[in-house]
């Protein structure tokens, strides 16, 4: 059914259709509307046979989900930013134990300085935790990915994070097609645990493992993700057959067939990038774009296949590996190992800085003209940076950076 609703509400209603049995809720912006929406659906009786648990922290949220999942219940939670960091130990435990929990990340920056706005620092910090990570381009895809996430998680025996851009998607009203319960039921069978804590047939889960077997257990986690690499596109194809639209899979390509330049990104910024691609195509530029849906497992071979005919790759990324540069671009270079195409990193949208068509257009033009450095920071305010660096040079006790910069910006606005 077509609806014009908020992204968070759309995701909440979709999770409801997946028949979760345990939902662990703890609020943190910009994810809060999702668990609030789910709370209302459980209270109204729209979601039945479900335990909605208000926990005392994010650490508790995921710990309860781990217990519930090990007890044989389909388990769900959601978080963002510092919340994800606070549950970090449990994040690794959930995947280490092979429990098919689904968790939404309403992507948000990590402090300090404290910032509630969108970037990918939070989910990126957990990229190697053993969870599958899927990134949504639109609210429709965010919904569809949750339905697929439960399928993938429960088939493979591995938890899945569905990452959706905080505010940009979570708080956006747009048109979505909400599936019918029968459709979801036909696609997503009841949860059949691979391992379960059952008093009538006792086992223990979570043994201590020494050097004699730790590497083997870890290898099997990697093996599972390699299996997921095959299953993710198959499940996406099955989803298309049943629901009639393309959602999920490993990557989405846009006008890449003849493209000399391909722009790669994760999440909602791909919409803006496609608009820029269309503008530049009108000017005769052979440019295309590629949106990565499955970041973990990382589709090295599929990326190599799409990217290797291009002459140049631009990676737009909403995160910064401080002291190194871009995380996604490092991964892309791995996909292109042995090849000669330049991969330009463009760090953009940190802490909610808008990524505009205009800035992207200029950046792409400059990169194509070879006028841009390997690691470029989009729309960086160099004047403000110079002022702070000068201040630090002049005075050892120049004060806290964030506060200094805010004062400078305030002064500039007054002028």
């Amino acid at each position: 059914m077509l609806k014009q609703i908020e992204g968070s509400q759309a995701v909440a209603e979709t999770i409801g259709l997946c028949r979760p049995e345990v939902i662990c809720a703890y609020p943190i912006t910009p994810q809060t509307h999702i668990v609030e929406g789910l709370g209302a659906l459980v209270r109204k009786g729209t979601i039945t046979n479900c335990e909605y648990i208000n926990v005392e922290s994010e650490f508790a949220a995921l710990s309860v989900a781990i217990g519930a999942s090990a007890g044989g219940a389909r388990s769900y939670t959601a978080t963002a930013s510092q919340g994800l960091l606070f549950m970090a130990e449990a994040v690794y435990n959930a995947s280490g134990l092979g429990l098919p929990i689904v968790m939404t990340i309403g992507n948000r920056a990590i402090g300090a300085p404290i910032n509630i706005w969108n970037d990918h620092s939070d989910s990126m910090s957990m990229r190697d935790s053993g969870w599958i990570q899927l990134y949504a381009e639109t609210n429709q895809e965010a919904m569809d990915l949750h339905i697929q996430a439960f399928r993938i998680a429960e088939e493979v025996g591995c938890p899945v994070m569905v990452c959706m851009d905080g505010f940009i998607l979570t708080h956006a009203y747009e048109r979505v097609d909400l599936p019918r319960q029968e459709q979801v039921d036909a696609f997503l069978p009841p949860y059949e645990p691979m391992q379960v804590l059952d008093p009538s047939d006792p086992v223990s889960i979570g043994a201590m493992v020494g050097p004699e077997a730790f590497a083997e257990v870890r290898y099997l986690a990697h093996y599972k993700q390699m299996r997921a690499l095959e299953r993710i596109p198959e499940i996406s194809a099955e989803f298309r057959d049943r629901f009639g639209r393309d959602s999920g899979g490993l990557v989405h390509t846009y006008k890449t067939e003849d493209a000399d330049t391909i722009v790669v990104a994760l999440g909602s910024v791909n919409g803006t990038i496609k608009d820029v691609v269309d503008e530049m195509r009108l000017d005769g530029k052979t440019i295309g774009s590629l949106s990565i849906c499955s970041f973990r497992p990382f589709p090295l071979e599929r990326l190599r296949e799409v990217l290797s005919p291009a002459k140049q790759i631009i990676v737009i990324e909403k995160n910064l590996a401080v002291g190194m540069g871009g995380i996604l671009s490092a991964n892309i270079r791995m996909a292109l190992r042995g090849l000669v195409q330049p991969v330009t990193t463009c760090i953009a949208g940190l802490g909610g800085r808008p990524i505009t068509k205009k800035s992207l257009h200029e950046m792409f033009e400059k990169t194509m003209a070879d006028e841009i450095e390997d690691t470029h920071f989009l729309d960086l305010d160099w004047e403000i940076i110079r002022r702070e660096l000068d201040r630090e040079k002049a005075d050892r006790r120049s004060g806290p950076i964030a506060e200094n910069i805010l004062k400078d910006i305030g002064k500039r606005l007054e002028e």
Partner: protein
Amino acid sequence: MFQIRFHGRGGQGVVTAAEMLSVAAFLEGKYAQAFPSFGSERMGAPVISYCRIDTKEIRLREPIGEPDAVIIQDPTLLNSVDVFAGIKEDRYLLFNSKQSYQELGIADFILNFIPERVGCVPATELALEHVGRPVPNAALLGGLAAITGIIQVDSVVRAVREKFSGPVAEANIVVVNEAFNMTKKLLNGGG
């Protein structure tokens, strides 16, 4: 694509206004995207929200820098926020005020705009009278329908029914229709 930017203060339903407008456009079979300025919304703090309307899927995710219409829910913002940023003179302006443009201090500024594309509605007063709360958003959507035609007033009424229910919905519908009629009359030289 038609892009609308709303300026108001926390508590004035600025975000709800953009959301309701997107619902109204959706009900007409159009594509629409509404989103807030993503601030920490506090009572009284300046808030911006956005709505895009198009006949095809909207992929763009940036804030609206060059709006086709600006709606100013609180004219006291005229002194503190650059509410007119990026607006061209052939585009639309709608103010919530019972004061004249002279009293608002913008008489000279709006001279450059097309008179039929500039509207002013006493939206807070209408809301206080019918809804009992100073929430000007519904009235301004009625005004927007009148000056732009981008949305039918009936669609705004249907959107109000989706967002609210019972007496609150009915009171807001009275406000929408009254604001629409007042604005139309004003544009036809009746004010």
